[in-house]
């Protein structure tokens, strides 16, 4: 990781940590909507950035179409997110959990890829992915099956704290670089 990437990772962790007091201390409906809105905006911005990169650079690259697919998918999820914010609290919470579980799924896929390539970082990624999915499932069961949205919000806050800590650890880990002679 370069200095800039580490700084970005730390900023991401701080943003995740900031969401916790918003969820805990603001009126529940507003808090959840605000968090969902911020996440949606971030997704849209990232989707636009990746799509722009495809048209400017990656369309000439072997395998570059993957960048286009990635950009469109992110943009689509982001726009969809904005559209569900105004619906009921249960739907928004369900959506937040789905995004949360999705990020866990991505972590597992990245871990399997890293393992295939022999990168030592795969274990941390796999644990992180499994914990994320398990937490999303537990929160979902608590919130929807037992009818306790408060419990779901608390669980979601714990998960955000966990994600922030993992990002912070990743920001300060050493990264191997191949030396070019």
């Amino acid at each position, binding site marked *: 990781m*370069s200095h800039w990437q580490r700084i970005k990772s730390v900023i991401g962790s701080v943003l995740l940590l900031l969401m916790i007091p918003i969820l805990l201390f603001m009126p529940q409906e507003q808090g959840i909507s605000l968090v969902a809105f911020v996440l949606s905006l971030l997704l849209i911005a990232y989707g636009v950035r990746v799509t722009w*990169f495809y048209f*400017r650079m990656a369309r*000439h*690259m*072997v*395998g570059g179409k993957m960048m286009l697919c990635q950009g469109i998918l992110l943009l689509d999820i982001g726009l969809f997110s904005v559209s569900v914010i105004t619906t009921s609290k249960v739907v928004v919470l369900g959506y937040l959990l789905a995004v949360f579980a999705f990020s866990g799924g991505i972590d597992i896929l990245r871990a399997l890829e890293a393992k295939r390539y*022999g990168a030592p970082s795969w274990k941390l990624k796999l644990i992180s992915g499994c914990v994320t999915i398990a937490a999303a499932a537990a929160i979902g069961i608590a919130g929807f099956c037992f009818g306790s949205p408060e419990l779901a919000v608390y669980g979601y806050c714990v998960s955000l704290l966990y994600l922030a800590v993992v990002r912070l650890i990743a920001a300060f880990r050493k*990264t191997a670089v191949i030396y*070019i002679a």
Partner: protein
Amino acid sequence: MNPDFHYYATYCAAILAGFSHDESMALCYSDQLVDLCSATLLTKIKGPLSAATTQLQLELMDARTDMIGLQNITRIWASFHFLPYDLAAEPPKRCSKRYRSKYRLICQPNSELLERTVRLAKDKGMQAAGIAMHILADTWAHRNFAGTPSLVINNSNRYFYELFPDGDGYTEKKLTFRHSASAPDDLERSIYTSSLSVTSENSIMNLGHGRVGHLPDYCFIRYKYLPAWGGYEELVKDNPADYHNAFCQMIYAMKYLRGVNETFERGHYDTEAAAPYEQELQEILNRRQLDASADWKALGEKLSGHEIEPFDLERYQAEYMNAGEDEKDGTFLGRFIRAAMAQKSMVTTAIHQSGNKLAGYSVEYDKGRRRGIKDYRVLLRREKEERS
């Protein structure tokens, strides 16, 4: 390329070009020093940091990838390890200026910049000659990659096959990459270490040939793959043939530097001087081993009749550090530093003049407005002094 070629093979080529043992030692020492003269080393000996010819692993990990940081990286890697082939090259399809700038830094042998590099080293001592030979050899080993971080140029995908000679053709074996930097490459199973896949365009993981690991550094290997910039056209890399060309071109270039050849022209190779040792050369170049130093050393000692001392990074450091300010330029490392700065300035100027901002500004080009790096003004002052 590894020390086996930059140090021992360069010594062999220097002897075949007619240099004495001592001259050849100074030349191959300077050649190998290009891979070690980092900002860390220059800080230790209190030399100018802008003379850095490489970046160490930890320096790369901490390198900034904003515009200024990228320009510093590009000045170093494009000037000494990935000499651009055509600064006016046009990609096959219409593209953005940013893509074009990176595409134009792709390294290939026999470039106009190579000609200028070798001519720049003429009559500048063995240190300048060593630097020029390093760059020349790397144009063969590092061809098809650019000396700037770039996903869209330096990346590769999983289509990678090692080729083994079999009768008149080749048999193929799927080649696997892993990212464990501490594990040695496994030649038996064709498992090689490469840098991590990072989809950020300017990630340091996408610098030069990092994404294909050390494959370009091994003289024995042949492989085929799809370079990121190549529009899905399969590219076959034949390292034994490329390294042979590099060796013969070095002899030709060094004969020019000695004054035996009147000119240095692109596409010329002194195969005649290498012919008596062709069988030994082919054996070394085709032997599957991670380090061919022992083989090249044996050949070099056979050619000169002298023992080739192992490379010692500290050999000339005390001389430089103990010299007075006015005497530093006359020391071994002083001459190396001056030659390195001249080379970096020449390449930076050429890249800048082509309208490409990836290597930053050059004082030589932009002296009126006094932009650029202060250290290089020394070069301009000395040039004026030499003229007057």
